[in-house]
């Protein structure tokens, strides 16, 4: 009871099968960062407020710091590294660059993960809807305007191109 309790887990991370023994108290982001070396997922507040640790687990957006690694046993986890490599939001990433939607870049992986969930729906969104969707992700540099611009423009572009690309 007083020692460090561990448990084996098997999961899929960015399409690759992974098996490890993890301390039961370790949260998912610490596992991804310190064990798998996937440091694209950031830890800001570590209590669910800032959104920097956003991940896709079994197809939905979650706070990686609010999930134990043992809870990801059997799960399909996609990090920003995985999202980047599939090109799912390559157009959004380009829009972020063009519109200066990042400055220090600390929040950017979380912003892209959160925006990706909105973009999967494929429909046009109003700026207010985009702001509401991204309200759980802090950015301390940009003032958000350029981020909303980038997401809005990319959604418009996809809609005009006439397709759900996902």
């Amino acid at each position, binding site marked *: 009871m007083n020692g460090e309790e561990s448990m084996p887990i098997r999961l899929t991370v960015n399409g690759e099968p992974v098996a490890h023994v993890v301390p039961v108290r370790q949260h998912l982001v610490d596992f991804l960062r310190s064990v798998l070396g996937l440091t694209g997922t950031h830890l800001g507040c570590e209590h669910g407020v800032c959104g920097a640790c956003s991940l896709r687990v079994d197809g939905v957006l979650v706070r990686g710091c609010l999930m*134990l690694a043992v809870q990801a046993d059997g799960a399909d986890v996609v990090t920003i590294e995985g999202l980047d490599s599939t090109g799912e939001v390559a157009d959004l990433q380009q829009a972020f660059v063009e519109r200066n939607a990042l400055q220090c870049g600390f929040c950017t992986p979380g912003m892209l993960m959160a925006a990706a969930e909105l973009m999967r729906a494929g429909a046009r969104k109003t700026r207010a809807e985009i702001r509401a969707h991204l309200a759980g992700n802090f950015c301390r540099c940009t003032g958000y305007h350029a981020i909303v611009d980038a997401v809005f423009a990319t959604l418009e572009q996809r809609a005009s191109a006439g397709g759900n690309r996902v």
Partner: protein
Amino acid sequence: MKAPKFSYVRAVSLEQVLELLERYGEDAQILAGGQSLMPALNMRLSAPRLIIDINGIAALQGIAFKDGMVRIGALARHVEVANSAIVHQHLPLIAAAMPHVAHVAVRNRGTFGGSIALADPAAELPACALALDASFVLQSLAGRREIAASDFFKGFYATARLPNELLIEALIPVRQNWVPVFLELARRHGDFAIAGVAFQLFIEGGILADARLAYFASEARPTLGRASLAAIKGERLDATSIEAAVSALPEDLAPMGSAAASAKLRLYLQSVLTRRALAQAQAAATGHARPP
């Protein structure tokens, strides 16, 4: 920070959960969505000996409508409740509240039962449950019991749930033709409310026949307005009666102050919301939708 050491059990049956709760009592914490427990662990505000993960218990899932009641399983995630056709059709108050419940990523994990069992005074769902006259099913090895929301919420993160009991589900009666109004004020969309109202009103022939007026993010637990209700019951909801209800608010509410808002500010904001909510209810009941 990092969570303190604890033992962890991924429960495979309800019986196993209840046995562990019987054995560990207050030394155990139930892990459902984890959206409040995990922050408490990471900040070391909570240091349980045992975490019981109930996410695999199928009996705690689901949303169903039967015999005039909606049953919401303790493990129903906020996103499921928000998207549920049953909730939209039969519990429009909860449907109106859901967009205010935290942020997308938190709604994807957080659970209905978790919000009820935690009883955060600023949370939306305990107030909705109170306004809707919901009851909750609690189970221990000794058996099941059902308790009304008005008896369940005891104080600041305090409920009538005993340490050996698990919250199984909420049972919410459907009231046809009652008008729902949900309003809240928060610093940032999805953050904890600094004032909020969850009202359910029955207006017949232009007269307010009955209502359940729940106020949250004020006192240590959601509060049912009695003086404010007395001021409008049997009346037409017009400027005069609405002001009478607002004037009665200090009899109903003695808000707590916090860094986010002083007691005085919270009471003022509740009066603003009450005025808006009652006007909206009247407009909805008489078919005159207010412009947004």
